[in-house]
Structures are given as C-alpha cells and as structure tokens.
C-alpha cells in the first residue's frame, strides 16, 4: 500500500505541490489527473524518492525511504515520462542493466527479463538495438524495465505519450493484468479517457492542489449537470423554440448544432420526460434520442473552469 501524507514542494515563490495526500491500495489503480504543470510529475517524483519534499512523507508499505540504498526503494517501480532506455544498446542489454540496479543477476535476472519481454510483447526483438524500435515498442519496453524487480507499487508517469493505438491498448492490457495481480498502480495522465478506462480512483490536481479525490463514479457526480440528452429533430427551427425548451423544469442548458439538440438536464430519469413531452406538444418530430454521462473532461472543466488540454 502507498500512503502519501501532506506532500509539499516549493520552487522559490512557486508552490509546485501543496499538501497532496492520498492512499493507494493493492490491486487499485489511482489516476493522478491534471494539465501539464499541475504538479503530477513533481508528486510522482517525490513518491519515487527523486525529489525531497519540503514537508510531508511517503510510506511504501508502511516504510519510509531513509537513504539512497534503502530496501524500501525495491518495492517501487518507476516508469518515467521520458523513454528511459539506451538507444545504442539492445533491449536485453537495457533490461540487464536495470535489473542489475536491483542486484538481479544470473538465472533470476534472465527469468525476470524473459517475463518482462513477454509482458511487453517484445520477446522476438530482445536482441535488437532499441534505436530500431518504434515509439510504441520503446514505451512498452520502458514499462517492462520497471517490472523486472517485481515491485509492489508501480508509478507510471504519462506512460502512453506519443504511442500508437495498438501499443496503447497493449499497455492498457498489461496494466489491467498487473492490477489483477494485486499491484498498486499510480497513473498520471492528462488523457481523461485513459483514466476513465483504467482507474478505480481519480485524483484531480490543479495548481499543485488536490481538488478531487474519489472513485470514478463519485467524481462524476461532483458535476451539477451530469446528464445530457441528445435528440435528433426532423423539423427544427421555429422562432423561440430554444427559449421555450429552457423553461422546461430541470433543463439546465440547450444547444442546437444544426443536426441534433443537446439538452442538459439535472436528473436524467426525472427531467427527460418533460423535455420529450414539450417537443411532442409543439409538433417537433424526434428521429432519435440518446443520453450521455458527463466525462472527466467535463468534470475537470466544471471544477477548474478550464479544459484539461488547454490548461
């Protein structure tokens, strides 16, 4: 289990991380979400022992990292945001080096490397130089390198940046398997759809502060307008119809994009019938009706007032 307590980091006048606290349990994947510069990487760096916090502490399965060579560090696997591999060496030479950093040698090292190559789907490319790999293959090897010493906690700092869809799906499958194996995973990203697919719990960070920390469902419920009705209308456009719809009880917002009507309601089940009845009463013919939940992007927008990708 990973316990992060009141982490604080300041660079001059800039507060990079302010009182960040959370817990990640075995078999749980926690997503640290936020735009670039929000403090995600700084937080992960402090958790991994790369940066010394000004305040706060990190407990790795109950233990503090007290020195450079503390055994507690063996329980953490770090997947850095940059590709942390030597291009000039073969994939096997890279893994042999990283395994040796954790005192792996001989048969245990060979077995760990074989397993890591299997996870990354790179067994047949093990002897090739990393320079010949595609971006996606490098990302998979980057992940594999962090698994060699079988850490209990895996810190993944934006592990899918610049990855093709095929490699991304493979990485997702790997992470889901690791979660099933009982590993604790902390996943930083600014791709909301990744967090929605993978994470059990979401921590949203902005300007170094945690502004949300809950399960995915609970975080979604933090947004007032959680439901949007999409309605295809065959005969739109009579004067005042948008204004009329807005008067319907429970309707928060109405938009028309020329093909479909988006009606945001407070409560899907309670408020949708009134919207449909109003359209029927005013002779609008509906071609289809669909509903969608607010996504994390909407949550972030609502909580911070800005889009995560434009922040």
């Amino acid at each position: 289990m990973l316990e992060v307590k009141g982490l604080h980091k300041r660079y001059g006048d800039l507060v990079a991380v302010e009182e960040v606290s959370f817990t990640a349990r075995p078999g749980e994947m926690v997503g640290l979400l936020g735009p670039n510069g929000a403090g995600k990487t700084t937080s992960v760096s402090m958790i991994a022992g790369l940066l010394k916090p000004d305040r706060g502490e990190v407990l790795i399965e109950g233990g503090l990292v007290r020195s450079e060579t503390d055994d507690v560090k063996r329980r953490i696997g770090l997947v850095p945001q940059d590709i942390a591999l030597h291009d000039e060496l073969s994939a096997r030479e890279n893994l042999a080096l990283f395994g040796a950093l954790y005192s792996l040698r001989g048969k245990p090292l060979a077995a760990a490397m074989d397993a890591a190559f299997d996870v990354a789907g790179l067994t047949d490319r093990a002897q090739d130089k990393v320079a010949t790999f595609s971006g996606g293959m490098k990302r998979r090897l980057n992940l594999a390198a962090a698994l060699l010493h079988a850490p209990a906690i895996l810190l993944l700092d934006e592990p899918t940046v610049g990855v093709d869809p095929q490699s991304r799906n493979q990485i997702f499958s790997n992470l889901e398997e690791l979660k099933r194996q009982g590993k604790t995973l902390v996943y930083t990203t600014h791709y909301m759809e990744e967090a929605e697919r993978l994470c059990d719990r979401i921590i949203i960070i902005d300007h170094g502060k945690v502004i949300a920390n809950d399960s995915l469902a609970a975080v979604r419920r933090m947004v007032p307008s959680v439901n949007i009705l999409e309605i295809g209308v065959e005969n739109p456009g009579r004067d005042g119809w948008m204004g009329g719809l807005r008067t319907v009880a429970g309707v928060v917002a109405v938009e028309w994009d020329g093909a479909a009507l988006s009606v945001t309601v407070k409560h899907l089940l309670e408020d949708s019938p009134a919207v449909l009845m109003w359209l029927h009463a005013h002779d609008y013919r509906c071609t289809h009706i669909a509903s969608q939940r607010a996504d994390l992007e909407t949550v972030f927008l609502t909580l911070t007032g800005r889009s995560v990708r434009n922040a």
Partner: protein
Amino acid sequence: MSYTAFQALVKRDLRLFFQDRRAVTMSFVAPIVIGSFFGYLFGGVNNDREMSKIKVASVDQDGSAISKRVVASLTTDKTLDVSARGLDEARELVRGGKITVAAVIPKGFGDEAARALFRGTNKPQIELLYDPSHGPELQMVRGMLMQHVMEAVSGEAFSGTGARRYLDESRKEVARATGMSESDRKSLSKMLDSIGDWNQRPTAATAGASTGATAGVFSMPYEVKEEAVTARKGVAYNSMAHSFAGMCVQFILFMGIDAGMVVLQQRRTGLWKRLQASPTSRWTMVGSRAASAAIVAMIIMLVVFGFARVVFGVKIEGSYAGFLGVCLAFALMTATFGLLVSVLGKTPEATRGIAILVTLILVMLGGSWVPAFLFPQWLQQASFAVPTRWAVDGLDGLVWRGWGMQEALAPIGALLMFAAVFGAIAAWRFRWES
C-alpha cells in the same frame, strides 16, 4: 555499494563508449595522427630526418673578393639554401614569405671590413632583412653569417690578394697613431712585419704548410661533439616519444570531459530518474563512472603507445611498472576530472566550452604542445601545480629518459593526489537532484 550494479554500470559505460564512433576516433585515432605529425616535425624517429634548410637571399652590392668569399661560404653551409638576388627582389621575397632572411652586403664592405679588423672602428654594416614570423631562424642566420664573414675577412686580410695593401695601410696607421707608447708601436709594427714576411713565403712552401682552406685564416677554434643523453648510451632519442605522450594526455583529458558530459546529459533524461529511483548509492554511481573512464583512459594509453612502439619503435626505456603506474594514476586523475566536470557543470551546453578551455590550458601548461623548458622560469615552477605537467614529465621520463620505479613515484604520487582531491570534491558536490 552494490557490486552487481557497479559492474553493470561500468559495463554499460564501456559498451556505450566503444559503440560511439566519434568518441573512439577522437580518443584513439586523433592522438596517433597528431602525435605522429608533431613527432615528425620535431625530428622523427632517431632524429635522422633531414631538417629543412633556411632560405636566405644574398644581395652582394660590393662584388669584392671578400664579399664573394662570404657568399660562397654561406652557399656551402648545409643548413642554408642561399640564392643570389637583387635588393628589391630580395625585399619582395622576404615580404611574401618566400625567403626567410636576406643578407645585404653593401658596396665597399670588403675594404672597410678588412680595415676594421685592424682598427676596430668604422665598421661596415651588413643589413639583414627578415621575416618577423621567423625569429629563431634570424638568430641562426646571424650566428652563421658571423662565422662566415670572420673567416672570409680574416682570410683576405692576412693572406689574400689585398693582404699587402691592408698591411701597409695598417703600418702607416700605427706609425701615425698618437697617444700610443713607443713599446706598443714597436710591438705592433713587428707583428705586422711578421705577417707580411709570412705572406712572402714561396708559394710551394705555403701550399705545403697550408693544409685545407683555412690556412692563414681565422677559423672556429673548437669543434663540437654532440651526444643526446637518453636512457643509456646507444639509445637514440625518438621525438615520437614526447609527442605521443603529449597528445595522449590531451585526448585522454578530452575523453574525461566527454565522460562528464554524458552524466550531465543523462541528468535530463528518464534514465537518470530510473537510476535515482533504484537503490543505487552515489558511491556506486560516481565510482562506476570513474572506473569506466579510467579503464577507457588506460586502454587509450596502451593502444596509443602500442602503436608508437610498433610503427615508430618508441620503447619504454625505463621501468615498465613505473610506466603502468603513471598511466594508471593519470587515468584515475582523468576519470575524477571528468566527474568534477559533471558535478560542477549546470548544463552540457554551458559546461562543454569552459571544460575544453580549462583542458587546453592544462595541456598547454603541462608541456604537451611545447616542452615546458621553453616557459619562463616562474611558469615552469607554476606548471607543477597542474596534473598534466606531472603526467607528461612522468611519461617522458619513463619512455625515453629511462627512469626507474623510484623516480616514477613522484609523478605517480602527484597524479594520485590530484585524483583524490578531484574525486573528493566530486563526491561532496554530487547531487541526484537536478
């Protein structure tokens, strides 16, 4: 310190170094090529290479027997390439760098020089027009000219065709001279008469007594026997030995800088984070880096001196153990110097230029480019404060001066001391965090 991690990091550094063609070229090929070039310039193998002649123009405006004799004598000098020119042409050739020195013998030089030999006054001038970028050659030409002029003037004054005239004029000068004591006047007159009598001998007798061109002529009163003192008698100096030592030191230091740059570059990458996240101590990190750089430095020295041995016959005339000791001590010094660069530098871009400048100064003060004896006295003493001086002196001493192990202890000790100081500062200033 984890031995497994240490070994893996050293192995990685060596693999990366030997896969880097640029690094290998700079470290192995460059010292061999440049060392060979400088060695050739400074004498080559056994110093048996013919030195290039100094180009001299003779401008004989006098045309006297003496001036002709001077020019002829200069022309036979093996170190000079003499050609006769007019004054304007000679000046233009010197200005254009085609001729190094032009010796202008003015009209009336012969008569005035012969008279000045006896009187010591009214000396004629020989004008030397010289290329200012060839100062040392000017000094050489001046010395040679003095020798040839003395021989020509004295020969002509005492035994040449005008000898009687010069003696008669001198006798009259002595008779007219005021303020001279009577006894001095008699002695000088007697000496001039004796020279005249000697010149009046029968030609055959003169030929019989005169063996060689210098009969009756002032000539150099000594001959020089030279011996290059090397490791022992019979061992010729091979200038490749010094040039290879100097270039080896220079390019190994460059390799040390590169080793430091690699650390600075790694700091910017995820590799550094991965290292830092692992239970790897700073001692493992710093020590492995130093060890790999020292191994590379040792390999470079052995390969470069091996090449010098096979191709140019540069032998280790001194203690082999001492030679290996100096190589090892210098390798460690270089490795710690690289570490120092890596911990004191902020970014590779900002550090590289300064590090190269510092290295070039170290190399220059160490005597890698020009021997330290050419430095002013104070600088010769001051240069012992830089490690390269100890390295170059140590390698010179063991390769061709024939130093024993005991003499090698001083450079070994000095280099190890520098390595210890650099290493201690590097470990003290090492920070995982950027």
